[in-house]
Structure formats: C-alpha cells, structure tokens
C-alpha cells in the first residue's frame, strides 16, 4: 500500500473476491434464513426464545453480509472500526434504555 495518491498510474494492490466466495456466502445466508423461518414456523412452543434467536440470527446474517459482500474483511481496518463504533453506539443506547424499562 503506497501513501501517494498523486500518481494514478501507480496501482495499489487490491483484493478481488472470487465468484466462488460470493456463492458460498450466499449459501450460508440462505441456510441461516431457513433456520430462522423454521424456528418461527415450527417452534411455536419456543415463543419466548424466538424473539432473541430471530434477532441473533439476523445479526449473524448482517455480519456475514458486511464481512464478505461489503468487503470489510479485505478493506482497511478503519471501516471495520467505524462500523463497530456505530453498532456499539446503537446497541448500548437500546440496551441501556431497555434496562430502565425492565427495572420498573
């Protein structure tokens, strides 16, 4: 990685994700979708569990999309850090307000 951005002819080494990797990512996402739908449709007796599991599986799917499709795995680490900061900000706000509500 060079720091100069004046010489446009000088190409930086970029990572190119393969078609196979994208296909595998899709398969993983479809599998997670099947699992979450199956839990919802067939696991009626797991009612209290299903809110948490549905959101957990959704979060795993989001991480997979961001990491592979959105290229965070191969990009500069600054993007991962920024995503984490935004995620932590949102989750901490949500959790902290919920705690107040649950402790009434």
């Amino acid at each position, binding site marked *: 990685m060079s720091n100069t*951005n004046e010489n446009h002819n000088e190409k930086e080494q970029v990572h190119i994700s393969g078609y196979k990797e994208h296909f595998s*990512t899709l398969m993983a996402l479809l599998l997670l*979708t099947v699992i979450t739908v199956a839990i919802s449709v067939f696991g009626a007796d797991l009612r209290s569990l299903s809110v948490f599991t*549905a959101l957990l599986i959704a979060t795993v799917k989001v991480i997979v999309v961001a990491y592979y499709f959105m290229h965070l795995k191969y990009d*500069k680490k600054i*993007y991962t850090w920024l995503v984490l900061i935004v995620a932590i900000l949102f989750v901490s706000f949500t959790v902290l307000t919920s705690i107040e509500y649950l402790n009434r």
Partner: protein
Amino acid sequence: MEHTSGFSLPNSGHNRDAEASKMGMWLFLFTELLLFGGLFIVYMVYRSLNPESFLLASFELDVALGTFNTVVLLVSSMTIAMSITAIQLGDAKKSILLLYTTLLLALVFLVVKYFEWSAKIHHGFFPGLDVYENLPPGESLFFFLYFFMTGLHALHIIIGGIIIAVVIYRTKKGLVDKDKYTLTENAGLYWHLVDLIWIYLFPLFYLIH
C-alpha cells in the same frame, strides 16, 4: 521560472480518489443505519407496550411471501458483489449482465411487495381505511409501522435500482472499467445496506410470533 514550473493548484485536475469516495459512501450508510435504527427503537418500545396486539397483527402477514423476498434480496446481493468482481477482472460484459440480474431481482421484490400491500389495502388494513380504524390500538400501530418501515425500505429499493441503472449506463459507455470501478463498488455498498435493513425487518414483522 524554475520555481513556478513545478507548481500546480491542488485541485486543478480531475483527481479521482477511490478511497475517499468509499469513505464518503460508508459515512452516508451510517446515517441510513441510524435512521432505520430510530424506527426499530420505536417498534421495540411499542411492541413491549402492546405484546399481544403485535403478536395477533403479525399473523396477518404472509411468511411465505416474506421469505421469498428475503431470498430474492440475498441473491441480488450476491449478483451485485459478483458484478464488482467481474469489472475488477476487466469483464465489463459479465459485470453488466450481473447488474441487469440485480435490477431484475429488485423488480421482483417490488412486484411481490406490491401484491402484499394491495392485499392488505384491499382488506382495509391501511391507515385511514375502515378495518384499520376499528382495530384495537396496538394492532393498528403494528400496521402503521409495517407500512411506514417497509415503505421506506421499498423507496430505498427504488433508489438502489436507479443507481444500478446508472452504473449499467456508465459501464456501457466505458466510463467504468477495470481501473475505475468506484461507482460499481459504491452502488454495491448501498445495495447491501438495503439488504441489511431487510434482514432485520423480515423477522421483526413476519417471524416473531
């Protein structure tokens, strides 16, 4: 003369900066995430206040159609990611073909959404219609949030589709190629965000019974 010959204004040329473009796109995506995040918090709070009503109302939605649209969006996410791979490898034709596929899947999503919405509106669940107005308070709120959040998401699908059409046009004209594919990359990032939001919308509205 020696001193002035090496001088040029900092932004006198048409400088491309792929990294800065990508950073700009990500910063925009964060504002989008927080926009939908705020709506999710509204949903969460009202759901905890009206658990039974939200549960009853959520049974009105068609899980099969929701699942179908989830699969459509996931596949479209793959095709646009592959179109970036194609343009990076210098295969503009394949990139365009994959972008068309993504566009087609976006249309499929919207058509399914259209039928879902029309069925609900036909049965009077839209705000202002007779059935909606007579629903218990919590259930009408569920449908209001459903229409507002999926509507805002559908708007993003439409905007994403327009952006993809622009990428196709510019790739055809040769303005996007092996060395300049920032536009394709940023369109991809936007499209993945639309997918991410649906990944949360789907279980919250269709699945949590």
